[in-house]
């Protein structure tokens, strides 16, 4: 490799040139993937009437490239800790997680089945009630998930059937208020577990 070692300066220069080329290329064509099909709010930020996996801007592409996702700011300071301490289980609210690929994020109506009565004077609960009164659902922000460009088709149900604990991938929620990405779900993380449990690590197990 020593033949190819260069000084820091030349690296920077190469980096700069390549970078400019990438930027130019990105403006030339709308480049690189971004929002998934169900990420409607993101896609409509710059509504052209066309849905495309392209990033709205190069900046978005760069952010994704560096795995930099802004911390999700939730509209309600929902506290997982309190709900779990009161004896609720994950699947009570995130229903469907043991049936298919995705877990439900409950709608405002679901929250209000309990909060019609419980803690209805707390400010955050009042916010929830106000959403419903306006006929709006709570715009929860996604915490975990894979970028569309990762082409990962994750399915919760078989993992739960195999006895994988929710905490294995989502961290210990009994200590969290709003959910935070405590576990970095890289491919290495997935593969390690698959190998330990002697499950297939064939690419098409997850990527298709």
């Amino acid at each position, binding site marked *: 490799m020593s033949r190819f070692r260069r000084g820091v300066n030349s690296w920077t220069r190469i980096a700069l040139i390549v970078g400019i080329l990438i930027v130019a290329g990105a403006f030339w064509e709308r480049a690189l993937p971004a929002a998934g099909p169900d990420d409607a709010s993101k896609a409509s930020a710059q509504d052209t009437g066309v849905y495309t996996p392209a990033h709205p801007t190069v900046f978005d592409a760069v952010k994704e490239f560096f795995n930099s996702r802004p911390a999700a700011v939730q509209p309600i300071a929902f506290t997982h800790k309190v709900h779990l301490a009161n004896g609720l289980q994950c699947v009570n609210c995130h229903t469907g997680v043991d049936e*298919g690929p995705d877990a439900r994020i409950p709608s405002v109506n679901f929250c209000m089945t309990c909060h019609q009565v419980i803690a209805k004077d707390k400010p955050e609960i009042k916010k929830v009630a106000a959403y419903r009164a306006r006929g709006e659902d709570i715009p929860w922000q996604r915490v975990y998930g894979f970028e569309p460009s990762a082409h990962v088709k994750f399915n919760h149900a078989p993992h739960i059937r195999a006895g994988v604990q929710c905490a294995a991938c989502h961290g210990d929620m009994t200590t969290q208020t709003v959910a935070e990405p405590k576990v970095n779900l890289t491919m290495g993380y997935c593969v390690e577990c698959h190998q330990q449990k002697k499950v297939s690590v064939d690419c098409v197990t997850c990527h298709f």
Partner: protein
Amino acid sequence: MERRDFLKISAAGGAAAALEGCGNPDHHLIRFIPEEDLVPGIATWKPSICTQCPAGCGLLVRVMQGDAEVVRKGQLGILKMGLAKKLEGNPAHPINQGKLCPRGQAGLQVTYHPDRIKGPLTRSGARGSGQFKPVSWDEAMKQLVGQLSALQRGKQESALAILTSPLRGQRKTIVDRFAASFKSSPPVEFGFFDDGVVREANLRSFGVASLPTVDLGQTNYVISFGADFLGTWNSPVAQAIGYGRMRNGRQGQRGKLVQVEPRISQTGASADEWVPSSIGTEGIFALSLANVILQEKLRPSAAAGRAGDAIPGWSQGLGDYAPAKVEKQVGVPAARISRIAREAAANAPAVVLIGDAAVAQSNGLFNAMAVNALNALLGSVGKPGGILFSSPEIVQTGKTASPAKGSAVNDSLLSLVNRINSASDAVKVLMLYGANPVFATPQALGVHDAFEKIPFIASFGSFIDETSAMADLILPDHSPLESWLDDAPPSGSTRTVLSVAEPAMHPLHDTRAMPDVLLDLAHQLGGDLGKALPWKTYDEAIQAEFAALYKEKGTKTAKDADEFWKTTREQGGWWSAEETASPVGAGKAGGAPVKISAPAFDGDASSFPFYFLPFASQLFYDGSLAHLPWMQEAPDPLSTVMWGTWVEINPKTAEKLAIRQGDLVEIASQHGQLRAPALVTPGIAPDVIAMPIGQGHENFTRYATGRGANPISILAPMQVAETNSLAWAATRVKVSAVGHGKLVLFGGSLTEAPAQPR
């Protein structure tokens, strides 16, 4: 340093420098509270009915939760809702048995089409300018009620005309009852491929004015005169299923398909034997086959019964049609005719079909009735492996049947046009639904100009097309997947079928089901109308029909009407357990024998040397599906053309006219001309020029507008004798090369020749 890191650094350096501060303004749409409770990622399957063509196949719609941008109470937001994701055939449905054709698959794109009309519109510019402005439903209904009550006040009820595509089920009942009790002129149904001639012929030969169910699965020998029964004719999915069985579904028994037509259709391409006969001589060909069978005493002439009696000279053995005497006229050697006749007689059950261009001739009715007689002679009518007719009494349960109207459809459109032209106030209001006659009739008929004279046109369609562009008011229907549906397809299954479907998904836009609007209209107008249409909604009307059906047919399978209603909805409809297709002859006598005649053509042979043969497009059907991008980009099966149209020319003819593949050619009839690129193909007679129907829309969404040319536009306004159907394959044309055309063929093909068939 690894490649990945290198890329990251280089990208970062450039991008960060160039784009600092170039953020993404996050204006998020609000989210509405979901109206339904679905598990994300899990598909539910809902039965529905395909409305892409008249076959009436059953669907299963794959519904999954997704985020849709919708308008609710005037506000744009995101709604988590069940969305149709894929259409499959309904395995329980007797017609398509879980299978679905390409047109049916693309039904999904009707619902999600970007140019669907999203709410009621009124015309804001000059008529036909395509300028509309949105109005509320209340305002739109007020306008229509105002127009109709003005007619009532002026005792001019008959100045209301209703023009629809061919309808069935309660949708038809509602339209018919509305028309009858308003005392409008009788509703007109228009479809380009309405098969009116075949219906009329079947009425005369067999006493049943409907298309037959073809029992291909059990037949051993098929002769098809022009009927593209594997493509678009009659009930193509049901027929393709039967064809698969006929070909290789029975141990050691493989049927033969003989296709008689001057241009290879998709069905002809699958045939064991393609017989290019002269255009319009199908009836003579059929009688020649009958002559051989009678002459050689393979079957007795009386076997043809009434269908034979309707053919002059039948009982005398049809001596004038001996193969040697007609071979020149038919264009097929006598020996070949005799061989086919013997093969058909020896391989019972054999079945003979006729349709499409073979009946769109001046002598089309004769052609169809000659084929009917041949079928009867072969003993294939009402028998397994032959053609069967659903017992009309049973289909009429709940008053859903399409009445035996014969060729009334085109007749009515013609008479509507004549009526509009007869007096200035003959038609003051037109209600338009599903039909697009401005596109699908020859320009020479003058439909566009006639409609210009109608003071007020209200359209219920989901799209702006050539006809609805002339509307003053648009009250858009739901898409079929968003709507209740019911259907009573008369052919395709030997069982009686009454399909029903609830909406597979909530409406995306501010639309209302056409039958619901009519019911609302009836109640607002009141009087007889309200009484004739007692139901508040369309689904109530369907439920009433199924309650009646329960009393008649369902008491054995369900304990009460409610359970019957529930199970039929879950199944996608009701179908009889046993085969109900009856031997024919039960109906009344057929009437006068048909006149035998040679085909006549518009335009003289010296200045217009070619027969012009428009044909149904496998992907666009009659042009009503040209707005779907999947249909545009799917390569045509025979030509592989995408996103366009073409003109088929025999290589010898092309050579003579110095036309090369892809050249732009001009096709001119006595009534107009058009231009399209040439496709040189051996599968067409040298004196025939063929062209697919479907493209050439002047105004039909972003995907179809201004694409290709419309062969219907240059046709002669010629009629099939003894009917009033359009003889759409009876026009002569001339052809000349005019320059370079654009022919988009699907490039993907093998790099080397594939293994040859053994």
